[in-house]
């Protein structure tokens, strides 16, 4: 290919893009649909949360649409797979605003949420954020927060462990991610005497840090971690033979099936956890009903995040009974004021647009989570 050809290719290319861009702008708007825009990661890091979450939302949307929708309007779920990256999330949201113009936005991770928050605030679009951090609704009156709140959650779990004298020395083994920073804040409110062990997110070799913790007399480690981190921690504590118990925020994240593959059940006795979502989702009431109604759904993708996604749609569908889709203030207000909807995750309403849950404290006994409080 010589230079001339290269130029021609480039110009043709450019023309295609411009034509496409113009054609998108003239898309007819369908007034009879409530459009939900989802910024989620479907492959790559975080997909193990994103895929079940979207699965739950889609299932709820299908069910509601099958019953005729809300006030005659059906839901339309527009999922844009986006990596957990600020610039990419901004790209996705701008794309959504320019093309489908969703009525309500959903986002899963803190980095994505923080990046798109100002844009959606300016565009006056309701944003349902499932990141662990309160900073999203704090900075945007159209934003609502669901999911675990690591500040209050960690505080509550620590209170339980302290009241029940579960530890002599508490420790935290944490990455620098925001949910952990807030968790540590919550822990310190109850127990200021805590030993900290930090690592970079992505690391999985905790052996030397654990040796340090053991040497420091730590007998309970409490933090927020992702499933693979918990897996490595449990496995290595077991191999090293240390008498350290884990306190998990959240319980469902830490005792995944994989952990039971690598650590004998008796060594998992006494693990503590806090959670609001249906633990052991596939066997819970929600899970069983879900699979009955959606028999082709891949069970591997049925996790507590499925329940969360499902729940958000039920919540919104209830809220939208009294609001028009293009009235964001009404939508946000209605969502936060919904009473008795079909909540599968024990929602107790909202305070300051932050969703409240009935938190349960569990201890792992005989191969299962036992409710303690």
């Amino acid at each position, binding site marked *: 290919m010589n230079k001339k050809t290269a130029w021609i290719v*480039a110009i043709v*290319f450019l023309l295609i893009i411009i034509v*496409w861009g113009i054609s998108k702008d003239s898309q007819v708007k369908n007034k009879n649909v409530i459009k939900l825009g989802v910024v989620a990661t479907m492959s790559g890091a975080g997909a193990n949360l994103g895929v079940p979450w979207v699965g739950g939302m889609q299932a709820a949307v299908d069910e509601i649409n099958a019953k005729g929708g809300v006030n005659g309007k059906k839901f339309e779920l527009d999922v844009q797979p986006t*990596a957990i990256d600020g610039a990419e999330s*901004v790209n996705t949201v701008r794309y959504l605003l*320019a093309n489908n113009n969703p009525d309500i936005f959903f986002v899963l991770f803190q980095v994505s949420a923080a990046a798109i*928050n100002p844009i959606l605030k300016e565009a006056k679009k309701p944003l349902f954020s499932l990141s662990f951090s309160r900073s999203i609704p704090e900075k945007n009156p159209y934003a609502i927060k669901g999911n675990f709140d690591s500040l209050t959650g960690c505080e509550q779990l620590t209170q339980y462990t302290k009241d029940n004298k579960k530890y002599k020395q508490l420790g935290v083994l944490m990455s620098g*991610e925001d949910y952990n920073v807030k968790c540590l804040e919550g822990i310190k409110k109850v127990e200021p005497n805590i030993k900290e062990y930090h690592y970079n*997110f992505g690391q999985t070799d905790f052996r030397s840090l654990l040796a340090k913790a053991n040497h420091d007399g730590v007998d309970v480690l409490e933090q927020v971690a992702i499933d693979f981190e918990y897996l490595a921690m449990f496995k290595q504590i077991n191999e090293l033979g240390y008498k350290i118990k884990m306190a998990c925020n959240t319980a469902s994240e830490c005792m995944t099936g994989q952990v039971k593959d690598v650590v004998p059940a008796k060594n998992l006795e006494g693990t503590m956890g806090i959670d609001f979502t249906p633990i052991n989702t596939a066997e819970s009431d929600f899970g069983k009903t879900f699979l009955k109604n959606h028999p082709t759904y891949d069970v591997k993708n049925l996790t507590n995040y499925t329940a969360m996604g499902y729940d958000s749609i039920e919540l919104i569908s209830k809220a939208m009974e009294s609001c028009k889709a293009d009235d964001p203030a009404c939508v946000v207000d209605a969502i936060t004021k919904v009473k008795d909807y079909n909540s599968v995750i024990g929602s107790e309403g909202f305070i300051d647009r932050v969703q409240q849950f009935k938190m349960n404290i569990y201890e792992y006994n005989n191969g299962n989570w036992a409710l303690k409080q």
Partner: protein
Amino acid sequence: MEYLIHLAILFSIYVPLAVSLNLVVGYTGLLSLTHAAFYGIGAYVTTLLMINLGFGFFPALIIGMILAGVLAFLFGLVLSRFRDDYYALVSFGFNIIVYSILLNWIKLTNGALGISGIPRPQIFGFVFNSNFSFLLLSLAFALIVYLVSSYIAHSSFGRLLKGIREDEKVLAVFGYNTTLFKLTIFSLTATMAGLAGGLFATYIAFIDPSSFSLNESIFILVIIILGGMANLRGSIAGALFLILLPEILRLVGFPVDIAAQMRQVIYGVILVALMLYRPVGLMGEYKL
């Protein structure tokens, strides 16, 4: 239309990145894989000065650029001992170290949480709030960087750089201080990357370390290799293509769960195909 403006802004931020890296890799023959580090320094310094110390955008940007250049000078001193593969590897290492600092120096950078609420640039009371006005600003900067780079490339300094690429030993024998030249171009291009960083920060209004990792350095490298080594217009074409590529993939409509990975596969295949069949890139004059 709004979305096209958004893409155009991204394009105008990548032009300085691509053009500056091309000066280092294409003209001087130094396979630097740490460009994203300077991009990141520019972004963070600009941001911190604006948010913590209330600086205006333009002064903050200039300081960000200068600091990126200074850091590049220090890196360059270490890098100047190495050639080819080693150079690439050590530059890798620098990128990772800078990324690590951005991620872990939480008191300064807020770590993985990132810094949000970065204000738009202001000049004489006019705030670049609308995206269209921002586009004009970023295009203006892109144009300036391009013109400066073009001037360098066609000047006698540019010829010296090409000489270093072709045969550094000969030049040294003739009494040219090749190390100084390499340091100069490395620092200068770092300030350009810092410029892009400052623009990026005020546009997206939110920055976090993940935008400045090794993957970003590799992305910029793919742009210039595709566009053509030692051809600045090629870098512009390359930037255009790679900004638009994800949008085209969106059109093609890959199944929702593999779209992002397909992009990576395509980048990889582009690199291999280019190296096999057209190592000079689309418009380049020089093979790596």
